[in-house]
């Protein structure tokens, strides 16, 4: 992006892509934030607004795709420029998914809001969402500053998110066993937690793409271990935490 091309319109096009990605990122961050807020505060109206916002994100992704294809066809980018263009396509796809996950959380607002749930159920979700949003924000900040040497934090935090998710999973299972009436809301919250955890994964994907754009190399392949909720079982006699 720092390089200057003879055709200034080419530079403009690359900058346009970067700006569009940033705008998409901002929109996605906002959607997730508002979706979780709507869920915690039991605010279905805010949820509806989040659902409506998703269309903008879809449009933005399509626009980035079109623009990227045009750049490839017209300018035949090389090396870093090519990585920049391909990276934009990949990042926009990830961000679009983040938006979808946000929308999915928003859709569950009314189902969960029907019976008021205890506060403690949401506190964990809020903490998880905060972690995922911090992850997303820092990754997008790195996209702006291109300082990939600091990108190691992404994996640490991804591990934290997974651990938190596993813990929430266990907690929700316990609530369901306590009282069958909890099963409906807790199942929704389980999906919400999963969605938030997925958002963290997409942020990690974006970080890997940024690393590739800037260095031309793939990030060393030490993916953190998966979440361990697939191993979590709560036996019948388990005492509630």
């Amino acid at each position, binding site marked *: 992006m720092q390089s200057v091309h003879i055709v200034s319109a080419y530079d403009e096009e690359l*900058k346009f892509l*970067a*700006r569009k*990605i*940033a*705008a998409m*990122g*901002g*929109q996605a*961050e*906002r959607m997730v*934030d508002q979706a979780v807020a709507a869920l915690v505060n039991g605010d279905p109206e805010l949820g509806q607004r989040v659902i409506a916002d998703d269309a903008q994100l879809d449009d933005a992704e399509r626009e980035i795709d079109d623009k990227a294809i045009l750049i490839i066809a017209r300018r035949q980018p090389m090396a870093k420029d090519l990585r920049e263009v391909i990276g934009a396509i990949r990042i926009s796809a990830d961000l679009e998914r983040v938006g979808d996950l946000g929308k999915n959380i928003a859709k569950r607002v009314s189902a969960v809001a029907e019976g008021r749930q205890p*506060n*403690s159920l949401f*506190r*964990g979700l809020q*903490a998880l969402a*905060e972690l995922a*949003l*911090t992850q997303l*924000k820092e990754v*997008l*900040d790195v*996209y*702006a*500053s291109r300082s990939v*040497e*600091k990108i*190691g*934090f992404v994996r640490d935090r991804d591990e*934290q998110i997974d*651990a*938190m998710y*596993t*813990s929430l999973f*266990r907690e929700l299972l316990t609530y369901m066993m306590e009282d069958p009436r909890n099963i409906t809301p807790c199942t929704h919250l389980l999906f919400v937690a999963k969605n938030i955890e997925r958002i963290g994964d997409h942020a990690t994907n974006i970080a890997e793409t940024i690393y590739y754009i800037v260095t031309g190399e793939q990030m060393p392949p030490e993916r953190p271990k998966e979440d361990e909720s697939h191993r*979590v079982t709560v036996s019948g006699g388990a005492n509630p*935490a």
Partner: protein
Amino acid sequence: MAETSTHTRAKRTAKLSAGRLYQNRWMLAAGVIAVLAMHVAGYRSVPFTAMVIGALALFALVAPRTPAARRLADEAARTERSPLDRLSGEKLAAAVADPLIIFDRDGMVVHANEAAQSAFGAIPPDLPLLLKFRAPEMQSLIEAVLGGEGNGHATDYVERVPFERVYRVTGSAVGRGTGLFVLAFRDQSEARRIDRMRADFIANASHELRTPLASIAGFVETLRGPARNDPNARDQFLQIMQNQTGRMARLIDDLLSLSRLEMKPYLKPGARVDLRQTVEAVIASLAPLAAETGVVVERDFAEGPFEVHGDRDELFQVVQNLLENACKYGQSGGRVIVSMRRTVGEGEPEVEVSVRDFGPGIPAEHIPRVTERFYRVDVETSRAHKGTGLGLSIVKHILSRHNGRLSIKSELGQGSAFTVHLPLR
């Protein structure tokens, strides 16, 4: 440097004397004419001399007026120009306490003042502003300012993570045709935070306070009814009631200190804390608790000073809460090791203060959650040790204000280690 200054000084003196000569050129000319006239008409008639004198007086009358007016005008121009002209935008921005970002017409950052850097993280020059501030309303504000419309346009900007902040942002062009624009942020978090605190307090505290209150009410009822004449039961019930009121008092203390922390999320710059002295003070102040629980506190400090940027009372509380927990919940291990060393974590030098106990340890699924408010690994144990469920939440809050973090390692049956990481600057 000295050479250039003497050079400029000489230049200025020459300019000044030339200016003075120019100012008095009329007086000079008048003198010369007078001398010439006396010389030529030395022997002429009296009226002629009188005429010359009259002419001189006229000159004297007229001449001083012009230079005086000009001098005044010059002076006015000089005062108008010099102090402001020499003022650099950077220094002006540094003197402003609110975050301020100057950017050019390509949307690239030209300069971000200290307040902006500490509020939003590093903002190097040439960073595209639209990539840094991605919230939709910021995007439209910046675009409006760059497009030349919306001068003095304002919007609200909310930054959620790592802690919530609300800003009123105003964007405007700097002067006319400079090609520079400025974003000024005004922090409005406080009002928002008070609102939020009230909601939080009602949600959390009411629930936590209701339990001891219900138990006190129950015992009062029993004391007035069935147990009225039973001294043994009365004593026992009064003891329980005393414990419950104590718990409520502690809970309120903790809630208040958490609220105080949330009210002022920024640290005063410049304050430095000697961690070694702080940790020693904590160990000394908790000696009674350690003795009571039968725990031996061991020190393992590296050599040299441990100075960090921060607030002493707050860091004291961090170490105090950790050591208190270690003594209470790691009681069965019989000892606690407090260690302090310098490391390089995440590329930056930092100080690690670690409190390790040899108690039962924390099950892995609880570790990520223990810093949440009112989260307890085991409600019974926590109650027995007079815990409020807020200690680690306070620790986490203080550390995030210090750009630090807390890491927790624990193995069942082996004990746990809580480590505070603080940047060394």
